[in-house]
């Protein structure tokens, strides 16, 4: 086990990692930008170094400053958290070249899985179902029309380098396809400097289901069950839960086993998430692998009792997993609401600024993960998430009731938060009766 690690991140996840380290008896080195100077959570670290100005590019993304901080502080490993450099294979490599462990997968695995097209090919090899579509890139309209005819309309045109919906087009028939094809390429070229696109079947009203996996460096791979993250707004997850509501047991087993196959095939170690979409007949299709810890990891922690951050550090340091798949329970129902400094009354516009007063929810079944406090100023430079409210109760009904109770208890004076909107979602018939889909928020709640 390490004596000391550096945390190349900020805010909630930096605090989360500090907590895990304290419980493991590992010393922590924090880094911070001028915008985060003086934040309370930095005091909990054993050391803290300023790495630059408020802008991420001038602080949390400065690889040389982060490596220097690790070296002067004698840190043996770096935990990247999520966001920033968490999925940057180059940073991953520089760490290892500097004889500092990167707490995550190998740069090679990260690279392979980072490219959607390669990842899809690996999935097929691992016999993980993928959305029917072109195997590889589409060169021209003619090929597009041919493939579309094979897989059947409606079809989706996607940019291989894409993300966040850019370079994406739906075509209901061949006419639409021929126009959309050009548009998608142009948009992709502009957005990513890479206009390569591919085709796949368009799935109506899908759910987003992902599987938490954990792998050591000795070939042992386990899953910590699935998370349903279907409630999203513009691809931003708002509510996550485990287990996936309404998933038949055989589908659960199938999707979790598929995730383990995928990770084994990619020769992947540390924590990761395999993302799927599930159609209305409970068929699941591989989407991508997130080669890092995720914001919503806490819901898997609650149902399994396993501290994922501690496990990340253990396996990175070379330890074998201390448990097998059979040892991993799935108790009750856990749910997480991301509390963002955004104003749902005004189209979720960012609401940074000073928190004059805050009443933090607590009590039976409630977990609160956040670095904020009365007097804390939410900076304008970073992600708008100010905290995560997690609830764990025996049944989904109880979990929803407690989450609503806790969201109503949370009172923040000085900034607006998404909490009131999340209450509306939790009270809606569609959510309670599990009739949501990835575009549900935009189509039914806004």
């Amino acid at each position, binding site marked *: 086990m390490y004596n000391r690690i550096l945390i190349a991140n900020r805010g909630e996840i930096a605090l989360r990692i500090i907590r895990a380290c304290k419980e493991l008896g590992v010393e922590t080195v*924090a880094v*911070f930008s*001028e915008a985060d*100077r*003086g*934040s*309370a959570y*930095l*005091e909990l670290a*054993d*050391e*803290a*170094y*300023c*790495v*630059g100005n408020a802008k991420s590019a001038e*602080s949390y993304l400065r690889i*040389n*400053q982060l*490596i*220097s*901080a690790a*070296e*002067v*502080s004698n840190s043996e490993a770096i935990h990247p958290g999520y966001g920033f450099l968490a999925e940057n294979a180059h940073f991953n490599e520089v760490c290892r070249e*500097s004889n500092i462990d990167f707490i995550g997968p190998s740069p090679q695995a990260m690279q392979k899985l980072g490219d959607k097209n390669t990842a899809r090919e690996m999935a097929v090899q691992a016999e993980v179902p993928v959305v029917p579509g072109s195997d590889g890139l589409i060169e021209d309209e003619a090929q597009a029309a041919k493939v579309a005819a094979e897989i059947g309309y409606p079809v989706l045109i996607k940019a291989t380098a894409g993300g966040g919906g850019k370079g994406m087009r739906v075509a209901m028939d061949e006419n639409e396809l021929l126009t959309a094809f050009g548009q998608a390429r142009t948009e992709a070229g502009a957005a990513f400097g890479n206009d390569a696109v591919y085709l796949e079947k368009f799935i109506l009203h899908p759910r987003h289901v992902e599987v938490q996996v954990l792998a050591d460096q000795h070939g042992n791979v386990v899953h910590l069950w699935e998370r349903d993250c279907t409630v999203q707004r513009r691809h931003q997850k708002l509510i996550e839960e485990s287990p996936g509501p309404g998933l038949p047991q055989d589908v659960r087993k199938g999707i979790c086993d598929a995730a383990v196959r995928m990770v084994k095939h990619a020769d992947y170690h540390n924590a990761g998430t395999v993302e799927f979409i599930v159609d209305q007949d409970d068929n699941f299709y591989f989407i991508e692998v997130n080669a890092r810890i995720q914001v919503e990891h806490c819901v898997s922690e609650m149902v399994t009792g396993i501290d994922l951050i501690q496990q990340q550090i253990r396996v990175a340091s070379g330890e074998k997993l201390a448990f097998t798949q059979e040892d991993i329970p799935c108790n009750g129902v856990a749910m997480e609401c991301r509390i963002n400094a955004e104003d749902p009354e005004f189209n979720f516009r960012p609401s940074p600024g*000073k928190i*004059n007063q805050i009443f933090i929810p607590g009590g039976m079944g409630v977990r609160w993960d956040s670095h904020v406090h*009365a*007097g804390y*100023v939410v900076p304008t430079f970073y992600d708008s998430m100010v905290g995560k409210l997690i609830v764990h109760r025996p049944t989904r009904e109880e979990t929803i009731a407690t989450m609503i109770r806790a969201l109503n208890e949370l009172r923040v004076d000085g900034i607006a938060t998404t909490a009131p909107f999340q209450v509306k979602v939790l009270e809606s018939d569609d959510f309670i009766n599990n009739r949501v889909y990835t575009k549900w928020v935009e189509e039914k709640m806004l």
Partner: protein
Amino acid sequence: MAKEKSDDPSVFDVERIREFIEMMKEHELNEVDLRQSDKRIKLRRGGEPMTMYAPQMAAAPAAAAAPAGGGAEAAAEEDDSNFEYILSPTVGTFYSKPKPESPDFVKAGDEVGADSVVCIVEAMKMFNEIPAGISGKIVACLVKNEQPVGVNDKLFKVAPN
């Protein structure tokens, strides 16, 4: 303003403002807002005390835990503001001398020019010579030799010319 009671000085009267401010500090007032006809004196200060988040860490990282806007506050601690500081441009190890056996680049009392090298900060095997950036007299070296420093940590206190 024309017909002003002689015993009632201008709102701009510095002495009276100073008295108000001292009262506010002494009694932890956040705001004073006084109006009369077209005159107004409004004074505001501070938020709630963030003292619990004051520095608790070792020398170098100490700056880390200084309250937000810590720079300003640090300055406020000084008896006066006639000094400037040479800050570290990078994370690294501070060296006060080019070689272990050689003397310090500078010591308290030395006059430096903007281009004078005052120390080295080593990061990733690269030895960065740090220029003073201002001309003046070194009042104090604030970091020990071979001590780790972060970006914007204060290295030297300088009395500018």
